[in-house]
């Protein structure tokens, strides 16, 4: 019997052959923490008298969540992280460098790696065909020091997507559609594996959106086979040599298989306060929106900014709808600057913030007022997420967000593309 992607990658990192359902000690290639979880990880290593990194070149401490620091307590946390990096030789990714998941993808991750990160959206690395999963501070701290962790080898839910997405429909709409179908705990404890002709033809930067949101269905990771599209993307980052093709076996054993017809997917909006509370654009449009946010590890990439800029070019945001744009990394910020995208956003009346998580974590840069509604390219719309339990968050693609910024109400991007 054949192996799933999860079993294949994990078998390369264990001493014994393992199958879904078994517990194993797994060698870890890459570790990440961020400024919300890193300080606790550092303190746990101090408690264990293990202030070291087994693989410092591939251990990255990110300062992206509350960056630049909005408060002295957080500035002190940032100091602790910088000091740990100096002591251990681990890499530091400081304020303005970008969101951890984007930067780890751009500069560190290779197909076949095992990545553990103290952030739930670490699963985005699955688009690189790396077994990437989010854990807590202590688990990641131990992985940093010992270069290993324990895992239950997950069963896999295979999602086959066939056909072409229609114009104005993006990977974001597809994943919201899938989560609406399988629900927010439909893949708990399991790996998702995305495949089929839609995925074969999908550019790498769009695949990253699918893997990013795997955790929103409860999944441990969201894997995609590495192929020519992966290679092209790695080459675009100057890392073509890091490529290796990995595919699941044809006779791999899946817990279940979900079939999706891409042509039937419309632009989708997830309504408060659950990611699986989805509506198609026809049922969503017309809802008044106070703030639009385009950015994050989910949808703050150059191609997302291009789509939004094409819609906003030469136009102004609706006077009652604020617009916040945050490129996901310094590299993307620089490219957007060079291409004139930031000028388009600025002229449209956007507030442009330095690369990082921006208002997604509810700590700064766009906290909602009581009763306010935000349409966002984020991955999560839980109550209180944007710093106020009295706020309402809705999720959509960059195109839907840009169209909405112009209209002041949720709008169909297909009418302005």
């Amino acid at each position, binding site marked *: 019997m054949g192996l799933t992607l999860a079993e294949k990658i994990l078998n390369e990192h264990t001493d014994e052959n393992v199958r879904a359902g078994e517990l194993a000690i797994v060698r870890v290639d890459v570790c990440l923490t961020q400024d919300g979880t890193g300080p*606790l990880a550092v303190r746990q290593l101090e408690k264990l008298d293990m202030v070291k990194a087994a693989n410092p070149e591939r251990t990255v401490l990110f300062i992206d969540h509350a960056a630049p620091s909005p408060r002295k307590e957080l500035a002190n946390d940032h100091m602790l992280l910088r000091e740990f990096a100096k002591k251990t030789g681990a890499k530091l990714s400081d304020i303005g460098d970008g969101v951890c998941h984007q930067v780890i993808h751009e500069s560190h991750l290779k197909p076949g790696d095992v990545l553990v990160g103290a952030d739930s959206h670490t699963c985005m690395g699955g688009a690189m065909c790396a077994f990437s999963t989010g854990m807590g501070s202590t688990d990641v701290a131990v992985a940093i020091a010992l270069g290993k962790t324990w895992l239950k080898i997950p069963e896999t839910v295979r999602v086959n997507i066939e056909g072409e997405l229609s114009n104005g429909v993006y990977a974001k709409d597809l994943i919201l559609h899938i989560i609406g179908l399988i629900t927010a705990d439909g893949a708990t404890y399991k790996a998702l594996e995305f495949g089929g002709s839609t995925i074969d033809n999908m550019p790498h930067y769009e695949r990253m959106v699918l893997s990013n949101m795997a955790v929103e269905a*409860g999944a441990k990771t969201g894997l995609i086979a590495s192929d020519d599209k992966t290679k092209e993307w790695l080459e675009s980052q100057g890392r073509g040599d890091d490529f290796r093709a990995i595919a699941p076996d044809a006779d791999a054993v899946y817990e279940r298989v979900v079939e999706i017809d891409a042509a039937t997917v419309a632009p989708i909006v997830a309504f408060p306060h659950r990611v699986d509370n989805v509506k198609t654009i026809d049922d969503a449009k017309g809802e008044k929106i106070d703030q639009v946010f385009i950015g994050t590890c989910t949808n703050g990439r150059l191609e997302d900014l291009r789509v939004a800029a094409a819609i906003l070019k030469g136009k102004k945001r609706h006077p009652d709808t604020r617009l916040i744009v945050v490129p996901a990394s310094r590299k993307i910020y620089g490219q957007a600057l060079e291409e004139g995208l930031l000028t388009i956003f600025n002229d449209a009346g956007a507030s442009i913030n330095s690369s990082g998580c921006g208002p997604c974590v509810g700590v700064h840069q766009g906290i909602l007022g009581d009763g306010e509604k935000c349409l966002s390219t984020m991955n999560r719309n839980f109550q209180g997420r944007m710093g106020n339990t009295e706020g309402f968050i809705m999720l959509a693609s960059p195109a839907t967000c840009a169209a909405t910024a112009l209209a002041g109400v949720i709008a169909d991007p297909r009418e302005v593309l």
Partner: protein
Amino acid sequence: MTRNGKAWIFGDNISTDLIAPGRLFHLRSNLPELAKHVLEDADPEFASKVQKGDFVIGGSNFGLGSSREHAPTIIEIAGVSAVVAKSFARIFYRNSINVGLPVIQCDTSEIEAGDELELDLAAGTLKNVTKDFTLTFPPLPGIMRTILNDGGLVKHLQKHGDFNINAE
């Protein structure tokens, strides 16, 4: 050894944003202070009124969302005996064991606010003393049981020097 306390009822989909909200991000390095706000966005009375030994009773998908270990940590600091829910999100479940907080998966639908509960982890039973019925639950898988019995992952490593995957 049993753990006894009152039930506090929470619904389905209690996210880590409701347990340890992002607006209190600056308190994450001051866990006793953060614990004064535990679950306050789900039940504003809980943090001030919870008694040592009480139980947090959830519905399905308890702890979904962020990987922040601070969420189960402050529930543990508040003196909660265990979180009991119909189902848990994966990262929260693993984090709870790592910080020494028992997490029990069973059907919570017959438990009501204020019910007196008695948990016997070793026996795998949760007795509702008020309503006189007993729920049973299966033991944790291998290494998780060892880590919880050791008092969390830090203590597990201090005791064994490494992961002890086969310890009983």
